[in-house]
């Protein structure tokens, strides 16, 4: 399927994928993430039950210390 991940087009080699699986698929290893699908916040506990569809706009942001 084709999605928009962090503002860039991305082809995912799966027909169905949850947000939690996408994070593993992309090897995002940061512990602290903020995730959104189609501009809606997805909380950590909901990532494994939230399915991504073809054409979805997905945001996965790493939280980085410093300020």
């Amino acid at each position, binding site marked *: 399927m084709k999605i928009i991940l*962090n503002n860039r087009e991305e082809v995912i080699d799966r027909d169905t994928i949850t947000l939690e699986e996408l994070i593993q698929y992309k090897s995002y290893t940061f512990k*602290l993430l903020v995730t959104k699908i189609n*501009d809606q*916040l997805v909380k950590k506990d909901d990532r494994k039950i939230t399915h991504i569809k073809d054409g979805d706009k997905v945001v996965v*942001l*790493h939280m*980085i*210390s*410093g*300020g």
Partner: protein
Amino acid sequence: MTFKEIKTILKKKRVGIAGCGGLGSNCAVALARTGIGKLVLADFDVVRRSNLNRQHYFTDQLGQKKVFALEDNIYFINPSVKIESHHIKLDPESIVKIFKKCDVIIEAFDEAEMKQMIIETVLDKFPDKPIISGMGMAGFGDSNSIRMEQYANLYICGDMKTGISEETPPLAPRVGIVAMMQANQAIQILLASEIDLGFKKARE
């Protein structure tokens, strides 16, 4: 747009600053110099000597609560800025209460956990309110790696990768660049809404 026109619009605007360290103190000062109407400051910390390498405080303010020290400093720069200071460790509940009326919120925390907390709270409770976050600014050099990315009402300024470590301490230049980008983005958002209105009126 002339500076007079810019100041006329910004005078009516209110910006929330969550955290008054390296990002928050410098961002607040830039907004005050540009003529923002009101700043809502929140921080739980006091000024320490180790902060002076990047934060907008002075040696005679050591030990003072940051929000009040910053309020004093802004007064010396632009006394017409209204300031509401909260000496508090922000949590989801207080964020909603304190920043409810702000036109834009600046995320200016140090810790990654706190950044996550405020971003999630604002996206959840105020989906229409712009939040401008600083993400990745430790170390030195590589200025071109610092950029701005927008995801609807969430704006991220920084290099998106360099966290604080023994080898990458937070230093004035890169922290300052990100703080200024946050201020710049806030001004752009605040002016854009009025420019759109102006164009509509002109067409009528």
